[in-house]
Every structure is written in C-alpha cells, then in structure tokens.
C-alpha cells in the first residue's frame, strides 16, 4: 500500500500531528525532538499522551528512538470504549482532553474516559473551559448533546494534581456541516471561581473583583463559587476563575486564569488581581470575537473539514498561531485548504457598530469523512 510518510521536525504541535495522523490514517515521523537541548527527547507528558493514544486505538505502531528524539507513528483504528488514564502532571488534563475531543466522535464504541491529573493550570485550557466552551462546539457538530458529558469529580491544582474528570462522548458515522456566521450579541456572562486548599473567602474576593470590571458592560453576570474540600480538593492549593460570555446565537467565548502554582518563583497570586486579569482577558476575547473562541478554533476547523462534502462556514476572530499551524497541517494530511477572508462590514450602515477586532470567515469543503471504525449491523 502506498502510504506516504509525513515528516516533521520538533515537538511543537505534536498533538496536532498525531491527531491528524490518526484520523487520516497517514504515517507520521517526527524528528529532532529537543535534540539540541540539555534534556533531549520526549518529555513525560508527551509519552503519557502517546500512551493514551495507544489505549484509544487498535493496531497502531509507535516507534521511539533510543534517545527519544525521533518518533514514528503508524496509526491504527480508533476503538474508544471505557478507558482510564493517569495524566502526567507536567501538563493539565486539558492537554489530553483537547486531543480526545478531536477523536471522540470517530471511535468504534462511545468513549467514556476517566482522566486523573491536574485539572487547572496556567498553560493549558482547564477542564472548566473545555466544559463551558468546547462542549457546546462539539454539540453543534454532533447534532445533540445526548451522551455528551464532562464531569469534574475532583479538582486538582498544579503542580501535584489529584483531580479527576470523566468525559463521555457518543460516536457518529458522519458529522454535520456547520454554518455559523453570526455570533449574535452577548446576553450573559457566567463563570466559575474555584478554590482548593485555600480559604473559602478567596472565591468571593475573585468574584467581587471580576464584577467590578464586567458590570460596566452587562448586568447579567453570575459567577459560581466552587470551593472544594477533603478528597475532592486534590493535592495542592490553588484557585482560579473561568469566565464565559454567552451570546444570543449560542456561541460561547471563554477566558480563564489560575493562580501561580505552589512554590513558583513568582510568589502567591492575589485573588483580586486574578479576577481583574481574567475579566480583561475575557474582554480581549470578546474584542477578538467570532462564533467560537480562540481555544476552539482548531477544533472547529477540524470538524468542518471532517464533515460531508458540503461547504461549512464559520466566523472567527483573529486566528491564533496554533490554529494557523493546524490549518497548515490539515492541508498536509487531508489536502484541504480553508478560504480565510476578513468579513466585510456592511456598507449601508453609516454608523459602524463597535464590535471589536477584525472578524474572519473560514470556509471549507468537507472531505466526506466517515467513521470507519463503527460497525454496521
């Protein structure tokens, strides 16, 4: 069989490459992974991710060189089903969950996975963010949210983790094309202020600070406080805030921040600062705008491509670097290019609406992807 191998260098965007390789069935080779660094080769969290991928698939072949600086991945078929995975604490669960979300609709059996590790940290999107903004995006492509759930049973802050989430997702034969070009106006802002192993007052302090900024825009703001105790609170202290702005058309723009992990050189975070900072990040996100927020751009693009041979169209804000790279990878793996063009403002209105930065329209034709793992009777 003529399966041409795609070769890349470096460990950046490793997840994208592995995900797309799995979905497209192409073999991928990654070389020069941290080859010039003091600690060369794959890190523990990447190894953990590869292990998760191995659990999720059937018949995949993974060859890692002795030094760990090069990796060959020959994908198998996605099986899904019930899984458990101990995520490495170097990265939060979000790192793993993002990839899982991309693969979940194409498994043989509906996926139900239990992940343990760090639920919230400063690098990756937290599980709260995924729950609040990624799940609605997924729902749009699946059609319904039946059997789609992300449950946070335990919270674990960086660096030691101890959190636990359960993610379940139904599998589909095909995805629906998506036309989503009008995000509508923001009707409400919700959020979760969480704290573990710190004083319960922290959450209230965060909420007050956040409201002081956001109330200037919208009255309908409610931020849930989530202070966990005992076994549910993980191993390290921490607190944070995830905010989501919901629009009339059902798009969710999300922003979040978490406190510095225990023992970080930056010292402890002040809750008020964190609240204000998060509010500003949210405003920035709103400024960027679009029908999906910046963390979900790549997921949306992926599912648009994996749809039927129909045109999908979505409005987005400025593309993140990650998304741009993802679009390039999509072209490599699936031979599909996106039409990306700025949305033209309507000329008939002489007074422009102040809706933030430039909005882009992403259009693509699906490749007619169908789930090859799922059995028919």
């Amino acid at each position: 069989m003529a399966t041409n191998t795609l070769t890349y260098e470096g460990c950046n965007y490793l997840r994208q490459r592995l995900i797309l390789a799995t979905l497209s069935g192409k073999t991928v080779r990654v070389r020069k992974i941290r080859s010039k660094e003091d600690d060369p080769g794959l890190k523990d969290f990447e190894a953990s991710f590869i292990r998760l991928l191995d659990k999720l698939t059937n018949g995949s072949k993974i060859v890692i060189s002795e030094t760990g600086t090069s990796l060959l991945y020959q994908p198998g078929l996605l099986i899904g089903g019930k899984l458990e995975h101990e995520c490495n604490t170097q990265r939060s669960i979000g790192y793993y969950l993002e990839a899982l979300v991309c693969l979940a609709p194409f498994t043989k059996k509906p996926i139900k996975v239990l992940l343990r590790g760090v639920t919230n940290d400063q690098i990756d999107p937290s599980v709260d963010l995924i729950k609040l903004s990624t799940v609605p995006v997924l729902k749009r492509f699946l059609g319904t949210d039946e059997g789609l759930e992300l449950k946070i049973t335990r919270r674990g802050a960086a660096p030691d983790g101890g959190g636990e989430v359960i993610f379940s997702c139904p599998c589909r034969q095909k995805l629906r094309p998506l036309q989503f070009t009008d995000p509508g106006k923001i009707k409400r802002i919700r959020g979760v202020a969480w704290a573990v192993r710190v004083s319960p007052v922290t959450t209230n302090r965060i909420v007050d600070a956040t409201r002081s900024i956001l109330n200037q825009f919208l009255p309908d703001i409610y931020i849930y406080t989530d202070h966990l105790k005992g076994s549910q609170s993980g191993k390290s202290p921490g607190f944070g805030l995830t905010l989501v702005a919901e629009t009339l058309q059902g798009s969710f723009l999300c922003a979040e921040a978490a406190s510095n992990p225990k023992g970080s050189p930056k010292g402890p975070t002040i809750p008020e600062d964190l609240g204000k900072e998060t509010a500003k990040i949210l405003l920035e996100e709103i400024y960027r705008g679009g029908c999906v927020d910046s963390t979900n751009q790549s997921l949306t693009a992926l599912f648009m491509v994996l749809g039927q041979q129909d045109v999908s169209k979505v409005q987005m804000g400025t593309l993140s670097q990650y998304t741009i790279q993802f679009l390039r990878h999509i072209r490599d793996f699936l031979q599909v290019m996106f039409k990306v063009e700025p949305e033209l403002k309507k000329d008939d209105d002489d007074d422009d609406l102040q809706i933030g930065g430039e909005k882009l329209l992403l259009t693509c034709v699906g490749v007619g992807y169908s789930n090859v793992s799922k059995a028919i009777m």
Partner: protein
Amino acid sequence: MIDNKPCNHHIRKMEDQTHSVKKHRQPRAGPSADKKKAKNKHVQELTAQQRNPKAFSVQHAVKTSRLVQRSQDIKTKKTHIPLVDRTPIEPPPIVVGIVGPPKVGKTTLLQCLVKNYAKQRLTNVEGPVTVVAGKNRRLTLLECKNDINTMIDIAKVADLVLLLVDASFGFEMETFEFLNICQVHGFPRIMGVLTHLDAFKDNKRMRKTKKRLKHRFWTEVYQGAKLFYLSGMVNEEYQKTEVHNLCRFISVMKFRPLQWRITHPYILVDRTEDITDPETARRNRKCDRNISLYGYVRGTHLKNRSNVHIPGCGDFTIHDMQILSDPCPTPDQEKRRSLNQRERIIYAPMSGVGGIVYDKDAIYIDLGGSHSHNKREEEEVQPANDLVSTLMSTFNPLDEKINTSHMTVFSNTAPISDVGMLGDQPSQESVQEGERVRRKAVFTDVLDDVDDNSEEPKKKKVKVDPTEELVFDDSDDDEGEDGNNAFLKSGFSLSTERVNCTEQSNDDVEDDDTSEESDDDDIEMEEMDLSSKKRGIQSVLGDNISKEKEDGVDSDDEIVLFANKKTSSDSFDQDETFDNDANISDNDSSDDNDDENDNENDDESDAESDAESYDDMDVHTVDSIKSPDEKSVKGSSDTKLISKTRKYSHETKASVESSKITDSESDIESDEGLGDEADDKETDENNESDDDIKETEDVEAEEESESEAEEGHLKWKSNLAELAAESFRKRQKERINYRKLIYGQDAGEELEEEKNDDDDDELGGLFKVLKRKQEKKTDERLSINKTDCSRFFIQTVQDWDLEEVRELIKDCFVTGKWDKSEDAAARLEQDDELYGDFEDLETGEVHKEDNREIDDEEEDSTAEGEDDGERKRTKAEITADEKRIARKKKLKEVFDKQYDMKDDSEFYDSWKQENEIQAQLNRAEFENMDDDVRVNYEGFRPGMYVRVEVNNVPCEFVTNFDASYPVILGGLLNVESNVGYLQTRVKKHRWHKKILKTKNPLIVSLGWRRFQTLPLFAIQDHNFRNRLLKYTPEHLHCHSVFWGPLTPQGTGFLAVESVSGVMPGFRVAATGVVLEMDKKLDIVKKLKLTGTPQKIYKKTAFIQGMFNSALEVTKFEGAKIRTVSGIRGQVKKAVRTPEGAFRATFEDKILLSDIVFLRTWYPVEVPQFYNPVTSLLLPQEQKTAWIGMKTVGQLRWERGITITQNQDSLYKPVERKVYHRKPVTIPQDLQKNLPFKDTPKILQAKKNPIKRVAVIREPKEVKVAKLMNMMKTLDDHKKKMERASMRERVTNHKKKQGTIDKKKQQKQKETKRQIYKALGQLEKKKNKFKK
C-alpha cells in the same frame, strides 16, 4: 338593463289586461291539501353515511388496521432519505459501456453509434471514445472485452450499460455474470440490446424468443426494463434508423446517483503519456516510470496529492494535477435544436482518429471540416511541437536542453511573444534598453487584463516555467551588461522578483490584477501606488533575505547596502518621502523631454538619483545606529529603498507619456506583490503588533499626503492626496492576505534557504549573512520545539480601564447598539410601515399611515424643490408597491406557518429543505472564483478535464499498455489506503457450483480494487461469538474475514475464484457487504481438551493428561469441565505431580473410567495476505491470464502429486464383537424376601450335576438285563392293556349311569310338576275364599 326596463313595464301592462284569467292557487288547507301532503311527504335529505351509519363504521378492526398499515407503507416506501444534491453544473460525459459476450456485435454497434453522432466512421476503436451527443450531453463510449477484470472495472465506472445479447443464441453466462457484478457495485442503468435477429427464419419463433428473452431480462434488471432490438445488418452495419432510435433513447436517459460514486472521485483515463526522463529510461529500461494520465474528473472532487488506485496496477499518490481546456466541450446553449457540423466533436486519442494535433497539455482533433480548424491554432501548435521534439530527441544535459528548447521557442514565435511571455521579451531586447524590457512586460499584462479569459493558458505557461525564465535572465546578465547601468539593474532584479512571486503562488497574479484595476489609467494613482509600495518596503524589512540576495547579485552598490542594515522605520520613511519629492522635482525639470528610447539621458538621470539616494543612505546609517531595536530584522531595507527611489524617478518621468505609465505600473505591481507577501510573513510572526503597525502606517500615509499637498504647484496633486488616502484606507481593509499568511509561507522559506546557499559562493559580504542565518536557525529550532499549547496568549493586553478602549466592544453586548435589521426599535418602525393603519378596538381610534406618509412626502418635496420632489414621489410609489408586496409576503408566511408543514411529513420536508439550502450554498460559495484558485479549496470538480501526473509506476504499465483495457484512476478517501481486517457478510452465489473453503485464495473486487486474499468464514453465534466455519453454508449468509484494504462500511464486494481464462459455469463465487473494519479480530474455533481421573475421593477427583504444565492449569482455573456421562465440574488447582494434573470437583462422584472434557475456544489467525491483481501490467497476450496464489489442491493436480493420507483416517471394514450379556445375580437377602415363584430355581439349575458313567456289563449281567428288559416290556404292555380295558369299562359304566340318571330326573320332574300343580290349586282356593 336599460333595455329590460321598458320590457318589464310592458309585461305588467299585459298582466293588467289579462286580469280576468285567474291563476291557479294551490290549496293550503283542507282535506285536499292534506291529501297532497300525505302523498309527497317531505323526507329529510340524508347522505348515505347518515342514513346507514353502521355501514361506514369500522366493522373489521383487523382488516382496517391492515388497510391503514398498507397505505402508510406505500407512502413511506416512496420517501427516500434526502441527499444533498452535489451534481455539477456541467457534468462530465456519460460513460456508456458496451458489454456482451464475444461475437455479439459490440464493436459494430460502437462504430455505428460513433457514426451516428460524429458522422464519421471509426475503423479501429481502442479505448474510450468521447462524442458530443447533444446540446448538453456528451458520451464516452467504451467497449468491454470479454474478460472478467474488464467487466468488473467497467461495471464500476459505467453510467449506462448497453448489454448486447445474441438473440439467435440466447443469454450467455457472461451476461448474467456482468449483471451480478453490477448488482454488487451499485446498479448502473442497463439497456438490453438484442442482435442477430436476422438469423431467425421463422417469424413466430423470433417473436417467441424475443418475449422469452425479454421476461428473463426483466427478472434480472427490473420489470419493464428497456430491451432494444437491432433487427438486421446492412453493409456490415446496423440499420441507420434503428441506431438513431437507440441514440435517442440514450439521450433521454436519466441517472440515479450511486453511493460509491458520489463519495469517490474517479477518472476514466482516455490518454496516457510517459513523462519519464528519457535519459533514465534509456539507462535502465526497467526503471519506474512517471506517467501523466488525462481524463474527465467524475464522481466528486478530486484533490491534488491525494491517494489513488489504478485497478490492475496499484496504489499511487498524485504527484501533480492540472486543469486542461475541455477537448470535447458541450456546444453553447443556442436556440437551434440540432448540432452543426463543427459542434460534432469526437475525441478518441487512443483510437488515433485522423489529424491529431498535440500540444503540451492538450490534444486537438481535426475533423476535416472547413470550420473546425482555424489557422491560429496551427501557429500555436507548431512551436510547441518543436519544443517537444527538441526535448525528446536530444541527449544533452538537462539545463542545456532547456536552454536550447527555449531559444527555439522564442526564435520561432513572433506571434507568441506578441501575446506575451513576460520573461522572453526582456531577454531579446535587454541589450538595447532597460526601459523597454519592462514596458513589454506590462504590455502583456495589460493585454491579459483586457482579455483575461482568452489568454488564460498562456499565462499559465508563464507561471509554469519560472525557473526557465530565471535561467534566461541570468544568461542575459552574462552577456555583458555594464554593471553601472543601475536602471537596467533595477529592472532586471524586478523581473526576477516577479518570477519569484509567481513561483511562490499563483495567487500573486490575481493580486496584481486587482491592483491594476484600481490603478487603471489615472496618473494620480501612481502616487498612491508609491505609498503602498512604501508599506511594502517596510514590511519587507523583516525576513526576505532572498530578495536582498537577488538585488545584490553582482552589483557593487549592493555591497555597500549590506553594510547599512540598521534603520529605524520612521526616520527612514520621512527621509524617503523627502527624497522622492526631490526626485520628482528633479525629474520634472530635467527629464521631461526624455524619450523612452534615449539611453544616455536616462542613465544620467538615474545616476543622479542614485547619488542622492546614496547620500540619504548614509544618513540612515547614522540614524539607525542610534536605534538599537530590530537590528537583525531590517535586512534588505536599504536595497529596497534604492530601487524604489529609482523607480519613482522613472515613474514621474513616465507619467508624462501615457504609454509609459502602464510600464511603470507593472513594476509597482510586482513590488506590491512582494510587499504583501512580506507583510503577511510579518503578521505571521508577530500578530499582536499588527495593529500598531497599521497605526503607524496610517500616520505615515497622512504625512505623505500632507507633504504632497503642500507641494501644491501641480494641481492634480492636491486631488491625488485625497484619492490616495482613500484608496489606502480601502486597501488596508483587505491588506492581510490570509491565504498567504497561512499557506504561502513554507514555499517561501525553502526558497530563501536555497538562495542562501547560492550566495555563499559569490558574495563578499558573507559574514553578516551567515550570522543571520545562524540566528534564523536558532529561531527555527526554538519554534519547532516550543511548548505545544492551544491557548491564545496575549503579550500586550489592551488597557481596558480606558473608556475609549471599552468603547471598541460596546456593541458586542445586548446592551449595545443593534444592527438596523435586528434593532427592536428599527423593526418596530418597519412593521409600522407595513401594517401602519390599524384600528384600536378599545378606543375606537383609527390609525392611518397614509396620511403620515403623504405628509412626509410633502415635506420632502417642499424642502428639496420640485425636480427632486418628483423624483421622490416616484420613489415613494415604488416603495409603496414594494411595501404591499412585502406585506403580502409576510402574510403568506404566517399563513404557511399555520397551515402548511403541520403534516406528518413536516420533519421530512424540513430535512429536504435543509439539504436544498446546503446544496445552494455549495454551488454558490466558490462560483465566481477563478478555477486555478478554486481547485485549491474544493479540489478538481467533476466535469473538469485534467492531467494527472503519477510517479513511480511500474514500467510494465507503459511497455505493456493496451488501450482496449480501461484504465481507471480511482480516488481513495483518507483511510482507504491502509490495510486491516475486514469483516463482511457474504453468501455463496447460488449458481456457483462449489462451496467455498476457508483459507482458500479468492479474488475479491471491493471498492476500486481487485485483489487476492485468503478469507476465513465464520458464523455469529447468539452471544456474538464468531465461530469458524470450514466451508460456506449452502443457502445461508455467513461472515467472512480477510486481510485487505480498509473500505467504508456498507460497500459491496464480489469474489471470484479465478480471473484467468474462461471457466465453465458461473464464475462469481460469492457476493457480500462490508460490515466492520478492525486491526484485530476475534474468530474462534472449538477446542476440546480431554483428561482422565487419576484418583477419586468422593466428589473430588485428580485429573491428568489434560494440560502439560501447571501454568496452563492456572490459566484455566475455575473453568467448567464435564464427564462423558454429563457430570459437571470445575477446575480447581494444579497439583505438583504429575505435571499438568489438577484437582477438580464434580457435582457427583465420577468413575475412574470416565473421560473428562474441557470445552474451550481457540482464536484463529487470519493470514495477512493481500495481493492486488495486476492485470494491466501483464504482457498483451497474457492480459486475461492473471494467476495469483494457487490452492494446494491446484498445485498437486498440476504436479501430479497425490495426497499422503493418514492411515488412521482411512475407512476400514467394521468388525463388531458379539455381545455377551452377564447373568443377573440376585443377592441372597433379596432372594429370601422374594415370593417363591420369583426366586431363582437353583435346584433346577442343579438338575444334572451327576454325570452318567458308561457301564460295561458282564455277559451274565447282559442276559439278566435283557431278561429284565423283556419282562419289563411285557409288564409295560400288560399294564397298558389293562389300562385300556379299564377305560372302556368306565365309559360303558358312565353311559349306563347316564340313562339311569335321565330316567330318575324325569321322574323327579313329574313329581315336582304334580306338587306345584296341587300347590297352585290350593292357592287358587285360598284366594277364592278371601274374596
């Protein structure tokens, strides 16, 4: 009416006159009235249902429910799952396959059809023939050889099949085989054609045969399928009218989309070419070839660089794809019904239709008509032919070859150069003049602009060979230009840059076009261009090393430039504008009278401007040293600057003469292209700072315009500033080309690196370049190993505490301002306009909108004067009209909402509508896009004629090519090029003679592929266990699992045992459908392990002989076991000795003689054998004789080896031992209690325990014994006699006694009678007394 009135009057008069005659009055009361009433009594009119409600009620509930069920079933059957309509606007030609057994007249029919369509006779038909069949229908006719491979391939691609049947012979096996193949791969339209009908002498027999064949055909295809009769031959051809009728049937045929074909792209190849480097092919005849295949894309969009499968050859990846102009286009939609001669095109490149003309990427066929062939084409074709021939014939090194071939092209092609290759013109005239070079280039551009469509192919040509042009330019340089001619230099570098642009992406050209449009002829626009150019410069600063290199090629000036790298952008810009202004004045004063051909003057002026700019440069360096920022980034700024200033001077000059304007424009454009690109890169790298840059640019633009306005001594300039600003703003909107930002970078990087390598050898200013390279490397390295994170981190958050910043997003919230179409207030107003007049029922007020409107109008008219007022009024009328329409529309919508869609079909209808909308969107989205760009987004859409390059094809494909075997390029979806286990549902075909054996090789046709594999048959038990079967069941579906290419679920497949030659019987062995794919599988076969008890303690037993080690036992701990007699048990634990023995418990005590079973399942491995059928690669004579793996049986048969049989397996005569039953022994205790008769009679059993002893007597004793014997005999006799006499005596006595008894009885009887008589009389007497 007017007439009637007097008439009535007249009648009344008449009545008056005849008053005396009384009118009859019916009786209203009284007996006569009653009588009448009774006679026709009024009966209430009732409907049948009212009269007899019972008859209409549900009387038979079951029957009614069945009726309802049936009607619903019929209704539901009519509905199909709605599909999005993805049929292309201009579909590819319809593939008509002509199929049948040999000698039925396929070729003749094909020839007749071609003759009917093209009015031309084809003698030798090979490969597909495309003809124009009508105004909007083309056909690709294809003959099918009598080979099962070909039949399978054709069934996969044909839209319509003409199934030829020899009526004089009847149906043949091939026909049914083909129909079965079709059923598996999606049923195309099938039309039967009966031939050889003239063979029937008897008319009645013919009629009967026709009918019989027709009915058989109907059962195979569908009831009422069209069967066509071709009655006889005239001059070795079918009758003209009949063929014509057949063609009419073909032309009205409608087609159903087939699942596989609407999801997979494919090409029926109608022309192939070997494009391998002849040198490599010469060196190694067996080397893998690069080929190009031509054909129409069918099915769905085919993407470049995707995987394809060529049935009969193998899997490949598309190396490259191009669109070609349609060789057989559908005639334009004109009013006329019939086609004219020119439009009757036939395209059959493999058949060698006369007068073929080759081009690089197209083939033209001369039909000989005077209309069809014009001279221009010939002219174009001529040089291309030369090109090809030079390329083919010479055996020189490659670069030489390219050079020579190009030279010939240019020398021969005055007309071509006229139309324009960009690179060639400068090469020819560069010796004379730099200006001219550019002008020519521009001229072509303008031309392109004017008639964009017509020049398309040529443009492409330019794009295709940028390297060649580059080479060309270089050679010019070598020819000995004086290096001081900076003007020329700049021009030259520009042209190369331009080439780069085109190389990087085709899109550049588009950009240029758009910019041109905006420029057009206005002189003023040039200024604006300049400003944009500056932007270009700025943004280029960053990372375009390559450009720097190019500019710097062998010019001493540039070396200087390398030194000044550090420039802060602001100062730079200001300076530049200054410069430019100075230049303008200079040029205006001195160069106005310059002719474009005047070499020296130009040079002088350029020199001047050069000098100036150099001075400036120095200033910059001083400046820039101070600014420490962005040192490494601003690479080529100064180089650019120089060239820009030069150009500027040139432009100003050119502005005087309109002819020159166009010239300079082109340069600017090319620059812009670069600039844009660079922009993109910049934005790519630091997205965040983007806004800042924009701002600064704004400022610059303003400054610029201001300074220019201040100049003011030329009137047009003041206007220009405004225009420039405006267009600048406009540009800024569409400034970022996202396409290049995202997709265009990689190519650019590669290019840069290459350039770097080149320069290392040549340049003196090497040191800095290297350093930067190093830097870049480290940068790259950092980026490739950066943290992989999807979050969008922002370096600089906007200051949201500021009111102005907050204002930026205030309308994102529901509290903000709304769009007019959505704003509640605005909509309310709109509604008012529509439903303006209404009556408030409570108050009784009537609100009128008309008044208000009129008032408004009046106001308007008074305000604006009469003329305007009139215009307004008409407008108002229109709006009123529109309003009415809008109102009606709205009402209708409301009505529809209420009354339509309330049916049970609501869901279905809305689904259908959704699909409709999607289909419209699919069509509209890329509709207005240029095809070159469009194919990037959606792939090559069906209906396009394309050229596909495929590399590394086995050389046999080329050497053994036979056009009569169809070549199909089947596109594969993403996962389909991988292999895995396929689980399928399969059924042996009932017409196939043998049953199929597990693990025997079968040739499977699945998807596009044909391959040999080793299937395992299995059946699914009720607990979903797949149990292995040794053979396929006779009339039952079973599962089969084999190793093969992953193919989507639901795809049909068929299996044949062999594809070589003709076998007796029905060749299709089995058909089936794919259910599931996996990389592992779970087929099991039954395994029974046996053991024997070693020791038995009550219910526990130690079993041995079942396992070989304790480990094995541990694996089976807790497993269920069973004895032959059915006593169930469980494996408990291994014991130490003997090895493999274990303790087990049973539900009852087992016997030592019992055998213990363990029933278990053993997984079976499916051999990973996948062998594609490579029938296309075989030599011509063996094409139909592909043989893959053989069965062991076949091999034995071929080699005459008999099976070595296991002696144990042989049958022997059965010898049965006689069965001896053991006697029943009854215990003593029991015997005692038995009744006597049931007791075993032991005495009897002991009857003759004494054995007789032979006695030998003495003679005396013998005498005695004799005497005794005699006496005994006598005695016996005496006794006998006595006994007999006694018996006689007794009988006599009995007789006597009998008579005595009789008498005695009679006597007694008599006495009794008398006594009774007496008693009776006594009684009588007594009674008498009583009375």
